[in-house]
């Protein structure tokens, strides 16, 4: 951890590489978090419509992304 942390610190907050990497990493983390939360909601009996409402997307979109076929 320390090596990579040092690298980021040395590069500084204004280095676009660190900033862009953070954006890409955050996006990946968000996708995983969404999957965890959707699975959890389904396990608790939530409908796709209810999940879609909370996520602010259409029912079709959330079902296509997370639904079991």
């Amino acid at each position, binding site marked *: *951890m320390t*090596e*990579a*942390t040092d*690298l*980021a*610190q040395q590069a500084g*907050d204004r280095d676009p590489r*660190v*900033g862009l*990497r*953070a954006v*890409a*990493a*955050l996006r*990946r*983390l968000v*996708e*995983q*978090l969404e*999957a*965890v939360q959707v*699975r*959890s909601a389904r396990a608790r009996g939530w409908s796709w419509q209810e999940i879609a409402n909370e996520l602010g997307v259409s029912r079709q979109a959330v079902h296509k*992304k*997370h*639904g*079991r*076929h």
Partner: protein
Amino acid sequence: MFEKFSQDARAAVEGAVGHAERADARTITEEHLLLALLDLLDPGEAPGARALLALGVDQRRTELTTALREARRAGGLSRADIAALARLGIDVGEVVARVEEAHGPDALAAERGPRRWWPRGHRPFSREARSVLVRALRIAQGRGDRAIGDEHLLLGLASGPGVVADVMAEHGASWADIERALAVPWPGRAAS
């Protein structure tokens, strides 16, 4: 495409299928490919395996596989990703701990999306892993090599964006490291 693969590269691809099967993964990923390429270290005769040996990657094999596991546990983030997010004030370790507390161990490591039927009776390569194969082909062509060998697969992995390339770089097997090791003629390394 696979008819252009050397025996070593075929062994690596088959090995990757085996790793994916044992992990009961939905797709064959870059990680499975790397694990299979590391398996070639044992005979250590394939060109790519020789390069990894020259780089001392065999000594760091356990650390490397642990880092891959940790990255998967953190939702597919490498140490460099985690450090970049720390600069934003996001403590990925804390996020992982809280999610696992609520949803169980390895909650963020789970594969996303629907489990699809395998059209040809075997699990498919992930989109990223397919890109590695395509890059390996281009790299082999670019170097004027007739067959795709395990060294091209390694370079294909190392040249990619993503967690596997990051983990490789963090363990002394970046694209540049591998290129450098491949440039030393075998057994020239022993002499140098």
